[in-house]
């Protein structure tokens, strides 16, 4: 091959690199290794972790453990899905495109919105994109962030807003779901961002807030952390939300230490042109046969460059595929049953915990996650239980360390994977450490 090129050596091909920067030997890193050795090395690291399947496990806070059907994980590993690029050549990408079109429809249905995109990175970035989109639509610059919103989502939103001349008014954490939001609306408010169920688990009906937002010329952005809740809880669209930003990990995607996950993003049809992210749309081919293409791409960075709706290039393709396959396996009957099962497991857990000495369930409403007030700081309790091989929940102080009033609060989640024996173990453990 070098002869065909007319070069004497590989080095000659690198002649444009300044000589001083060209390394003439391999770097000080380990040499190549076989599958067996790599598997051993990485397994050693994996084995140092206490994983959800091994012990009683009650963590949530935006990342939920659910059972993933075997066929979902099998199908996403088909090389035709796994190793395809973005479907830029629709004639040879109809598999991905049709799956995306079905995904968009499913997301629109469960959120009760009109249109959804092909996904964003995760729930937190979707939340931030939702707030910024509201600012573009309304041409206003103030975002009101409810105390119900996951602290990471708030942090990401503030981070992205800080260099764009947008103001984010962050309300204090709202464990009781009692904050008044409408009172913060003013003529410069682009949107109010709420989460339902809230970070602390409370479920609220935001129908009146949606109306108040619209009366003030603002939009309501609704975050959903746990999409399984949409099988039972009134959908954002039914409450009047204009933009929905959700985390889709619960369907099809394992915990994986918080990523990669999949951001769901759905809006009202009239806002479509300001929506970030890719979209698949239906059309026909030359023979009149129904098919799908990426469409409305003039909103995107590769055409609009600095005027694009967002700098986003990738979506979360394979995670979205896992989501859509899991939801297709469930169907209407399975999805609603899964939601009921999650809620029932959580109610049972709450009833067991609420009677313990030094433990109080503070929620009046919840879906599959709620907040406990403990007699002691929650972080220490969780550490003590971890030593007993119980992963008890998420201390609120882990995410909101500077608000001292929250130190005794513990978020606890139950899903269909929660066993009765796990609940027994948690109750025994809590009684011991409190």
């Amino acid at each position, binding site marked *: 091959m070098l002869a065909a090129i007319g070069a004497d050596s590989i080095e000659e091909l690198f002649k444009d690199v300044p000589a001083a920067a060209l390394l003439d030997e391999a770097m000080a*890193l380990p040499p190549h290794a076989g599958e067996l050795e790599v598997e051993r090395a990485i397994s050693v690291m994996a084995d140092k972790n206490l994983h959800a399947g091994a012990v009683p496990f009650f963590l949530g806070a935006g990342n939920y453990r659910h059972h993933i059907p075997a066929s979902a994980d099998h199908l996403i590993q088909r090389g035709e899905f796994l190793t395809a690029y973005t479907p830029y050549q629709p004639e040879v990408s109809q598999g991905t495109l049709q799956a995306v079109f079905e995904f968009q429809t499913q997301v629109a249905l469960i959120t009760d919105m009109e249109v959804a995109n092909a996904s964003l*990175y995760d729930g937190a970035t979707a939340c931030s994109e939702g707030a910024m989109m509201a600012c573009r639509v309304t041409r206003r610059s103030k975002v009101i962030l409810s105390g119900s919103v996951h602290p990471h989502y708030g942090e990401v939103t503030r981070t992205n807003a800080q260099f764009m001349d947008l103001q984010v008014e962050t309300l204090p954490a709202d464990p009781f779901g009692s904050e008044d939001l409408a009172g913060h609306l003013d003529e410069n408010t682009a949107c109010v961002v709420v989460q339902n169920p809230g970070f602390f688990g409370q479920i609220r009906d935001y129908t009146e807030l949606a109306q108040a937002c619209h009366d003030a010329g603002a939009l309501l952005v609704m975050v959903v952390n746990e999409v399984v809740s949409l099988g039972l809880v009134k959908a954002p669209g039914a409450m009047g939300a204009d933009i929905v930003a959700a985390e889709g990990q619960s369907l099809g995607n394992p915990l994986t230490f918080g990523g990669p996950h999949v951001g769901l993003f759905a809006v009202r049809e009239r806002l479509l042109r300001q929506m970030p992210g890719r979209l698949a749309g239906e059309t026909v081919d030359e023979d009149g046969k129904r098919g799908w293409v990426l469409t409305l791409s003039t909103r995107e960075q590769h055409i609009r460059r600095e005027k694009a709706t967002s700098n986003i290039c990738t979506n979360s*393709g394979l995670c979205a595929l896992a989501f859509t396959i899991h939801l297709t396996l469930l*169907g209407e009957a399975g999805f609603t049953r899964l939601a009921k099962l999650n809620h029932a497991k959580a109610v049972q857990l709450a009833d067991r915990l609420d009677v313990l000495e030094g433990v109080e369930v503070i929620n009046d*409403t919840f879906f599959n996650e709620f907040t406990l007030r403990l007699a002691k700081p929650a972080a220490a309790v969780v550490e003590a239980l971890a030593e007993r091989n119980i992963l008890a929940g998420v201390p609120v102080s882990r995410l909101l360390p500077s608000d001292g009033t929250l130190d005794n609060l513990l978020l606890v989640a139950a899903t269909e994977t929660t066993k009765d024996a796990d609940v027994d173990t948690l109750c025994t453990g809590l009684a011991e450490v409190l």
Partner: protein
Amino acid sequence: MADDLQTITGHRGLVMEEPLIFEQDAPGRTAVDLPEPPDVADRLGSAVREGPIGLPGLSEPQVIRHYLRLSQKNFSIDAGMYPLGSCTMKHNPRINEKLARLPGLAGIHPLQPQSTVQGAFELMAVTAEWLTTLTGMAGVAMSPAAGAHGELTGLMTIRAALEAAGNARKRVLVPESAHGTNPASAHMCGYSVESIPADERGRVDLAAFKENLTDDVAAIMITNPNTCGLFENEIIQIAEAAHAVGAYVYCDGANFNAIVGRVRPGDLGIDCMHLNLHKTFSTPHGGGGPGAGPVVLSEALMPFAPLPYVIREGEGFRLVEHAEDGDGAPYGRMKGFHGQFGVFVRALAYMMSMGADGLRQASSDAVLNANYLLARLSDLLTLPFPGPCMHEVLFDDHFLHGTGVTTLDFAKAMIDEGFHPMTMYFPLVVHGALLMEPTETESKETLDQFIMTIRSLAERARDGEVDHFKQAPRLTPWRRLDETTAARSPVLRWRPDLPQAAE
């Protein structure tokens, strides 16, 4: 001809027609056998869902068949050569997939007590050490979710550092050959974007750059190797000039795969660079993500890196999640939790498999393969800039002038030949760009077949066989799709009341 044969079912042998899931609905059916929920008094309050959602019910065999049939309508790197320039479609080893599914990695929660996930932090730290060593940089922000997200992270880090020094400055210089994400990211960071022209060699015009370089420039965003597949040989002068006015040099690392193991960007004066783990480090593209875009940073920028980050502490590791828990002055947070951990696992498995020697070999072979295409095609296609190229070779469409065949037609004819087309119409600096990136994982036999195919097609175009190209692709399950109709009257979801499209 056989391809005119009409079938009763619409199936064509192994290529099966597949309706939407919504058109296969059997109400009440489900493929997941869940236990009966225990009977409890609900705690949902008044905000409960009323009425059906509208999700279709299918059985497990139906679902498997549905997605298997869909998969068969996709081109993939597993199936054939995918020479999409700038996208780095190379083989994705399956050991990476297997390891990402280990329960100790896939089954851990990001907010578990830190003492119970030391192995996960170790994996992040080891991955970070590989990345900083390979790039010769001081540190790395691991959390960005993709390349564009990494760009934004890098620019925000630069902005935070400049603000800390008292002046955020106003402008970011972006070469006109840059990826569209560059100006979009700079804009999101509050900077005005100025385009720097390319010179006649396809590189940044150093004189034009220097002319635009004033003390209100925050950064230059440079891609090296650039999107024309060429190494910016004046990179050191560019960096020195930028540093002289207090500006930073951001490098778009999308093309790092050309130089990994041979050149450390840190030695070129680069302050900040994102790495597309799904390109250089071979994590799968998944039909459009998920990716990961860690950003390597110089010593000066490290204190401003976003949250969270892992530090070594004694024998173990600690995750810094809040500004007050660390020494730095982080500007914020880019993403929920700790980054694309599952992608880190795959990238680390790849780096360990390849090793220092294998990574060096990979970039060498990628450059060799691209130059082989250049050598074997440049007599027939037109080369806007002379070689040698790096990992990808840029042609333009002059060879099609007067033939009546467009770049797009040419690409569609490649599909009939079993190749995915190269990147077209990008970069914008040449007219009708054709950007080919063979990667190191294609064999000489495949390259030779590709070369033969391109040569034959170019000759057919020159010989006036316009119809062959205008009709292409003919052998795919779908012919060319009508993008105008899709955009004029967008149908972005299935609705029960929509009239069925003509079959």
